[in-house]
């Protein structure tokens, strides 16, 4: 079989918030390194304000083709369906559009270039992304100037639905692209793998058969 395959997905709850300060505990043995680095792992965050507890989603992918694939490794959106206990993670911009709701006039919009992981032919990689513990959606409230963030808790997670974009070359925009052009490029870039798999750490009673689709 050619192409990119998702071979395993896991979702891990955030650790308990530590009570600070208190007497230190012995250090733990660090976990062995993963197959591939996780681009969303905090690297140099002097300004890491407003960070909150997150779920950790790992997606193991295998490249069964004969060429290197550049796989998106940035969370672009997410959702949760409590009825099916399915967490949807978008490492793809299939949802992206210029802000265009009725009555909304965009004057500044900056589609970000995704982090990408190179997966050589025949090799596997682990992509790790953080996902909030609740789906947070911005909305306006009639009669007031301030906005509102609606929160829907995530959990338990038994299935992970992934949208994963990859291509044989990395996405690299030219610098002066207008926002709407870059948004369209991102939305249409490469191949997007769409697959729902069980959360290997908390699978459903009757495991979901992988349901993979690809769209060019």
């Amino acid at each position, binding site marked *: 079989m050619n192409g990119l395959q998702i071979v395993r997905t896991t979702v891990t709850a955030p650790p308990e918030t530590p009570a600070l300060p208190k007497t230190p505990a012995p250090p733990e043995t660090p976990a062995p390194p993963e197959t591939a680095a996780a681009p969303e792992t905090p*690297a*140099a965050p002097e300004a890491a304000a407003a960070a909150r507890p997150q779920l950790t989603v790992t997606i193991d992918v295998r490249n069964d083709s004969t060429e290197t694939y550049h796989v998106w490794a940035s969370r672009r959106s*997410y959702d949760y369906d409590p009825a099916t206990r399915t967490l949807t993670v978008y490492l793809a911009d299939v949802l992206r559009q210029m802000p265009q709701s009725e009555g909304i006039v965009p004057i500044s919009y900056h589609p970000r270039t995704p982090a990408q992981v190179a997966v050589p032919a025949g090799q596997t990689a682990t992509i790790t992304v953080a996902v909030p513990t609740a789906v947070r959606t911005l909305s306006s409230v009639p009669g007031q*100037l301030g906005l509102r963030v609606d929160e829907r808790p995530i959990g338990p997670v038994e299935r992970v639905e992934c949208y994963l974009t990859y291509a044989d070359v990395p996405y690299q925009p030219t610098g002066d692209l207008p926002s709407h052009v870059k948004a369209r490029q991102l939305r249409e870039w490469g191949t997007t793998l769409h697959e729902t798999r069980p959360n290997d750490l908390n699978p459903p009673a009757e495991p979901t058969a992988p349901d993979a689709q690809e769209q060019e």
Partner: protein
Amino acid sequence: MTLFIDQTGDPDLVLSDVFTICGADFGLGDETVPTDSSVIQLTYAETAGQGPTADRLDQLVNTDFDMPAQPDFGIPATDDVRIVVTGLPAGVLDPHSGTDLTGNGMSYVDTTSSPAVIRAVYDLSQCNGAGIWVVDDDGNHIVDPNPVILYHELSHSLHAATGTLQANDEPAAETDENVMRDRLGITHRDINSHDGGCGITGGDDGGCLVVTAAYGSSYSGAVDRLRRVRDGVLRADAGGREFFDALHREYYRFSPQLAAAMRADGRLRAEVRDLVVAPLLEMVELAYCRVTGARALASTGESFAQLAVGRVRAAAHTASARGLDASGLGGALGAVADGGSPPLGPPLVRRLGRWLDAVGVPLPLTRWAIVAPVAAYWRCVATALEPRSDSEIETAVAAELRAWLAHGPATLPGIEEGTP
């Protein structure tokens, strides 16, 4: 009066960014809106000589903008238009674009409100701590600090409010943004590149704002050693990252203002560098060597004992030559570390205490991770000013480190009381 801060998200951090924009000018204020508790309204009586970014803020706060109709954009004429800034945590979904706002800022005119409102919305989490990059004139990735992001969005807002929006407004906003970058002393952005993304390591001020301000560059050896300890040891597991995220949330409440004040005041910069930052770097390196058994990070590669004795004796010599009261510094800083604000003591320490108190919330991690080791350092130096053997100095340094680390957070990796 035009500029408002949304109470949704983290309005304190937004206010902190605005405070940085005005150059830590205490003419900035805020007041409640009797008819709308969802926002606070900014007030600003600019102190003369604050510079162009403060002038811009003054314009935004103190002008009643009658926004003209801009048919090319679908923007209706709106008298006395309001600009509302919303600063959000990571992971908030924007219903208008269908995507996650993490690592991003956006502005729009909301005509669903009556009258229309200009909204500037931005993520405060710096890509959930990974940092945001944009591009400089040489194609390098450079940092995009939150006050710069906000200033950029407010540029778009001003253009909309004054009817000066352009079809591609990014170059104009990025030109404005570079004025804010000048204020922070960081690299200019390429106004012809609108690229950006999450995840930046190093960079021109990817390190600590205050340390970078103290040394003038994040490429200095001292800053690099601190970064290596932080990223290679302290942030090496989830507990360490969580601790640092919490520390950064505290730290960012005051560090932009302090760094801005240091850039504007050479004497303050030198005092902070010599009395606080350099000692902190020394103690971090000493703790690293003590806990891990590693050699010094500097190219000299001394053992802990050599490092402790050599550095502390050198500091004592310098303190003596400059007439510094090491014991007084240690005592006053110790009081600040314990949450107090010493009425007596060196002016810098009293000022530091006031800076921390002015934040208005407890800063336990800052006081433990930053102030306490500096206090311990000066106590060590005071010890070395007395007739002491090398062994006694090493013992004193080890005891100070042990006492400091014993009060540390449980999740910080690699720390175990009494380990050699």
